[in-house]
């Protein structure tokens, strides 16, 4: 029997994949394969374990078009408003998924940090990117990005370079029409280099675009990267981000994801700890203040080498009829001995209509492994609230203090005060 898969309206409208000038042959082929996958597999449904709690039906009847907006005038005011205050951060601006060197602080970049549009990187060294793209997992939205991406940011940090200046990657959506934006970013951190990157998502207008991002991170031996993600898309928007992390020997990757924006937000992180003693700490905080707002973190960490450490620590506050999903999948290969892994997910529900789903998946094939996981869902502590009120603090402020206290465990991971202030702005 033939299965007829649901194909969203907008995918029918986008009749051919967007091929920009001359792309390498392998890329064209893989884009066509992705396109084929999209046509054949159809939108994910809740029958698939990976999308058990994710209802994509709202996407079916959208009228997404591909981003056309090229007008970059009048953006400089908005960009200066979005800058990190009291910081020497180097701002790199991406508009509707296209990196804009002319709007960015490229002149401030040290020689050790190479930055260019992904299209240029593809022209310069296609093999380099071909190796990166191999790491992507075949999921619907990653394939959608692969079929449609034209550009994004390519950033490479030279071996041994210790960056003093944080990099502020500011993505702005300026489209007024509902459109589909598919940027592809590649961050390659050289041996024993150190870098801090703040990924920032902002929008000019309140419309319901779909921002479908794919980011590749490669950390060479001994590299250290702090990645702070600040997802502040407009309240109507959908944000889907895949991050693929490739961690070599003794490298360290740290993520703090702060999500408050969008009506729909999902982050799929796939981290491969490929080298001995690599470590990876993934954390996030989200506050959902809108009815029907949805946030989902699907985290997958694969320990492929011994002495590797990992952590997942996600916390969220849910109000009204919002929903949050956390799925933490941990996989330890048979040869990956002496592994330490920890995962935790805590929710605070402010409304009886809010829902939180938390699911750990542990697949452990090695025997010398320490893995712990825990999850809680609760309400504001009435005793703590009374304690604060009894000291003269108004109930509303007391609640805010308790919520801030709940976030503190995540916020304290950001040691740079200006970056912390910038991340906290959206809470």
């Amino acid at each position, binding site marked *: 029997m033939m299965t007829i898969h649901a194909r969203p309206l907008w995918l029918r409208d986008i009749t051919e994949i967007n091929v920009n000038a001359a792309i390498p042959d392998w890329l064209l082929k893989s884009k066509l394969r992705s396109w084929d996958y999209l046509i054949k597999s159809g939108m994910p449904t809740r029958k698939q374990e990976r999308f058990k709690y994710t209802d994509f039906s709202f996407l079916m009847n959208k009228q997404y078009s591909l981003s056309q907006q090229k007008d970059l005038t009048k953006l400089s005011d908005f960009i200066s408003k979005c800058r990190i205050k009291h910081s020497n951060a180097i701002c790199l601006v991406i508009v509707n998924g296209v990196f804009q060197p002319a709007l960015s602080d490229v002149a401030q970049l040290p020689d050790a940090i190479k930055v260019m549009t992904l299209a240029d990187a593809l022209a310069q060294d296609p093999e380099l990117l071909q190796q990166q793209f191999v790491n992507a997992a075949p999921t619907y939205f990653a394939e959608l990005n692969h079929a449609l991406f034209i550009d994004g940011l390519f950033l490479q940090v030279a071996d041994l370079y210790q960056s003093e200046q944080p990099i502020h990657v500011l993505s702005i959506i300026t489209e007024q029409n509902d459109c589909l934006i598919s940027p592809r970013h590649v961050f390659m951190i050289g041996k024993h280099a150190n870098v801090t990157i703040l990924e920032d998502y902002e929008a000019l207008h309140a419309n319901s675009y779909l921002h479908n991002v794919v980011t590749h991170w490669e950390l060479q031996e001994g590299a250290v990267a702090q990645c702070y993600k600040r997802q502040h898309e407009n309240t109507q928007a959908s944000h889907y981000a895949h991050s693929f992390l490739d961690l070599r020997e003794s490298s360290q990757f740290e993520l703090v994801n702060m999500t408050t924006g969008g009506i729909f937000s999902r982050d799929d992180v796939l981290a491969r700890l490929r080298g001995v003693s690599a470590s990876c700490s993934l954390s996030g905080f989200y506050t959902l203040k809108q009815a029907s707002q949805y946030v989902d973190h699907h985290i997958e960490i694969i320990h492929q080498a011994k002495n590797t450490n990992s952590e997942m620590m996600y916390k969220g506050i849910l109000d009204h009829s919002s929903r949050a999903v956390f799925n933490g999948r941990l996989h330890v290969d048979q040869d990956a001995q002496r592994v330490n892994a920890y995962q935790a997910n805590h929710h605070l529900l402010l409304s009886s209509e809010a829902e939180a789903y938390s699911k750990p998946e542990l697949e452990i094939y090695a025997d010398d492994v320490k893995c712990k996981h825990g999850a809680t869902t609760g309400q504001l*502590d009435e005793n703590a609230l*009374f304690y*604060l009120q009894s*000291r003269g603090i108004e109930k509303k402020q007391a609640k805010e*203090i*308790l919520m801030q*206290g709940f976030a503190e465990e995540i916020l304290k991971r950001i040691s740079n005060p200006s970056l912390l202030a910038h991340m906290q702005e959206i809470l």
Partner: protein
Amino acid sequence: MLSIKNLHVSIQDEKLITKSILRGVNLDIKPGEVHAIMGPNGSGKSTLANVLAGREDYQINEGAVSFDHEDLLSLSPEERAAKGLFLAFQYPTEIPGVNNMYFLRTALNALRKQKNLPPLDAADFLSLAKAKMKEVGLDETFLSRGVNEGFSGGEKKRNEVLQMMILEPSFIILDETDSGLDIDSLQMVGRCVNSLRGANRRILIVTHYQRLLDYIQPDVVHVMANGKILKSGDKNLAHELEVKGYGWIESEITS
């Protein structure tokens, strides 16, 4: 003047069974006076302290409490605090993630706002807090920790006394502040409470034992049992209780 008239209070347990706890409490405390309430476990002392501070778990069935001519029971906990009421908790709550100094400063500035005083900035507050911490014997490192987070029993009590010293309330209720304290800590509590004693301040000490009253001489001692004040007297009543226990009062009343 604090005036409690015929206060009846009950509580619902987890099985939704209503249990009567206070059964007609009458108590007047004039400015400048120190009162002590003693009594056996389960007599309703802590309930009285918590009802005065405004904890919501209780059902007020009858009676009234007026505080400087205002209906205290109609006020929210924070409004009571703004009027000068302060409860030193028997079991102070741990609030992880909320910085102790931030909490203390927010509380003080909330009260200052009510009095139309400008807020204290971080530097001024820090020097005030450091001076008061010395008095209560808490190390300055406790300012940067979470509120009561991981504090020992004694440290929690000192943190309560610290808040009392910083907020300078006009009506202080000490709910078994002495329980679990060593002699040095007990002396510190005595010293701090005595330093606040004054013509405009009312102090209510809830305790099982007479020990704390060696350091803070009460004007009036009440004995509470079974949700009522059975007997009131001067400080000698406390000594008498220490020698004879609580049983004789209950039998004296029933006979």
